[in-house]
């Protein structure tokens, strides 16, 4: 039963990775940039919920909504201030800027909330589910993470494929100039993408901090990078791919931690990334794009 326990934990962690990976995939697909700061938006979301619940003593639901609103606004501001001036710049400059933003958020949080990690109280009150006479227990956080990620993936797929704004996003990801000629406002579409991605990051932050209740200024960095690995694994730009990649990475990490070596779990996840990029750089569900001269 230990294996089943580990598997469930893996799927739970993987669902959180999937939600983060969706943010990466959306932004990468549309703005063609690696938003390095995405992981740190998760951390900001966690701190907003923490402040709202512990310092201001608001109810968990209001705290979560505040976090989503705050992160959405943060995403839009980051895009406008740091990335928009670099729309035509080389990818190297954009990447370095993104690293700068990530560093900025981490150190801002360090200055405001100090070094000592905060203990996060779970916002989720779903009862435990016992299976096989209590041999396997599924925690409320696990249920919440899995349900939330499924709702988000389905909702996002419907939004992208069946609404006008969503199809505008697809058009921009395909060809910015042609989309503009068709009357699509490219700037507002990219802003919308960042807003959605950052809002999802807030949700991921709540789920992550509820499952692993310590919150520090680097809480988001590693999950962010691993979620990027998940997005690449599933095929970057693909919404179902992000879900599949996220869950696989979560399961690999937890099983690696349990059966190979706790210290090497991170190394195993990164080794997976390297293998994927060598064997199939477009990921499981990715499309191959030929480079034009």
């Amino acid at each position, binding site marked *: 039963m230990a294996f089943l326990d580990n598997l469930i934990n893996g799927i739970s962690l993987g669902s959180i990775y999937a939600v983060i990976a969706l943010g990466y995939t959306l932004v990468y697909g549309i703005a063609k940039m690696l938003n390095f700061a995405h992981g740190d938006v998760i951390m900001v979301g966690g701190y907003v919920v923490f402040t709202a619940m512990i310092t201001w003593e608001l109810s968990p639901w209001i705290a979560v909504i505040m976090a989503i609103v705050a992160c959405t606004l943060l995403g839009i501001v980051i895009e406008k201030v*740091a990335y928009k*001036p670099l729309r035509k*710049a080389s990818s190297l*400059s*954009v990447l370095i800027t993104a690293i700068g933003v990530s*560093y900025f958020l981490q150190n801002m949080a360090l200055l405001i909330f100090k070094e000592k990690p905060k203990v996060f109280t779970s916002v989720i009150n779903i009862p435990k589910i016992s299976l096989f006479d209590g041999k396997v227990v599924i925690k409320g956080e696990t249920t919440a993470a899995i349900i939330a990620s499924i709702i988000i993936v389905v909702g996002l797929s419907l939004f992208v494929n069946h609404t006008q704004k969503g199809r505008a996003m697809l058009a921009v990801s395909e060809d910015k100039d042609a989309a503009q000629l068709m009357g699509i406002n490219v700037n507002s579409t990219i802003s919308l993408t960042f807003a959605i991605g950052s809002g999802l990051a807030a949700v991921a932050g709540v789920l992550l901090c509820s499952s692993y209740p310590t919150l520090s200024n680097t809480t988001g960095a590693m999950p962010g990078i691993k979620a990027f690995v998940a997005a690449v694994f599933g095929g970057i730009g693909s919404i179902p791919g992000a879900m599949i990649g996220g869950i696989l990475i979560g399961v690999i990490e937890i099983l690696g931690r349990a059966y190979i070596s706790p210290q090497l779990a*991170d190394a195993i996840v990164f080794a997976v990334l*390297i293998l994927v990029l060598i064997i199939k750089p477009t990921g499981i569900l990715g499309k191959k794009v030929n*480079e034009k001269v």
Partner: protein
Amino acid sequence: MKKKINPMTRKSFVTYGLLLIVFTAVEIMVNTGSISSMLQGLLVPICIYSILAISLNLTVGILGELSLGQAGFMCIGAYSSAIFSNLVKDTITQPLIRFPLAILIGGICAAVFGILIGIPVLRLRGDYLAIVTLAFGEIIKNVFAALYIGYDSAGLHISLKSQGDLGLAPDGKMIINGALGISGTPNDSTFEIAAAILFIAVIICYNFVNSRTGRAVMSIRDNRIAAESVGLNITKYKLITFGLTAFLAGVAGVLYSHNYYSLQASKFDYNLSILVLVFVVLGGIGSIRGSIIAAIVLTLLPEMLRSISNYRMLMYAIVLIVMMICTSNATIRSFFVRNFEKLKGLIIKKKPAGETAKEGE
């Protein structure tokens, strides 16, 4: 007829001259005791960071790809040389023989890893390359943090689990103790050696950039497809650059591990790679002299301004963002260029006027 000096040669000799002047000045200050002990402790780290910065500049500035694995290569250099020094410190007692060997071993180990990693990774570009090099850096750090090595009469014992798993004989000695790292490495790094290595590294970098290989690498940076179509072997040139970067980072790692009594893998996390990137960006991407100046200034500044050291990292972040926006946004850059031209015009116009006046006298 006056023989014209190649501008690149002149540029490199100005840098060599500046380095020699700074080195002499520091030596005089150290010998006359007019330098605080805290500052003295920073001299070797300054050389280490400068070497890291110029080596990363080869990849970022000359090859035009972002590598975030600098800390990983440094880690390999540091560990391999520390293992070597700890093994032979009783047999080779003369540091002048031991340390150059350690430097070579550290550098070569890092370069071999750099090339091994480079073969699969350099097919990728841009964002993917950055994230994969970051991943490699983290893997290297994690593996070294989980590594236990000891030796006894039966030879070397290696384990990835725990100290007990090694099965050492009672007379055995631990070399790497997992997350606790290596301790007892001889302190062979002196400022003179570090400065000499920095000087050699600068010479290597300038000559690399000005060589046929360096020009080929730059042509790949400027237009990969055009470079490929004139018959340049992209992978080969990328690997050479990547290997050289890794070699120099490894050498910096050797200096690092022989500068401190104990060494932990956790020091080599990706914040270190980003710090080096800040040096490169602030000094000017592609400018070797700039990288060194940035490394010196950014290492000294936080120590001088202790009161604002909390804000140091925040400043680095803002510097990265502002530098990138100012240098890469066409509108903002043209604004700077225009005003700079105006300023330059004011100064240069005055100068010839002054010279003619002199001639008139």
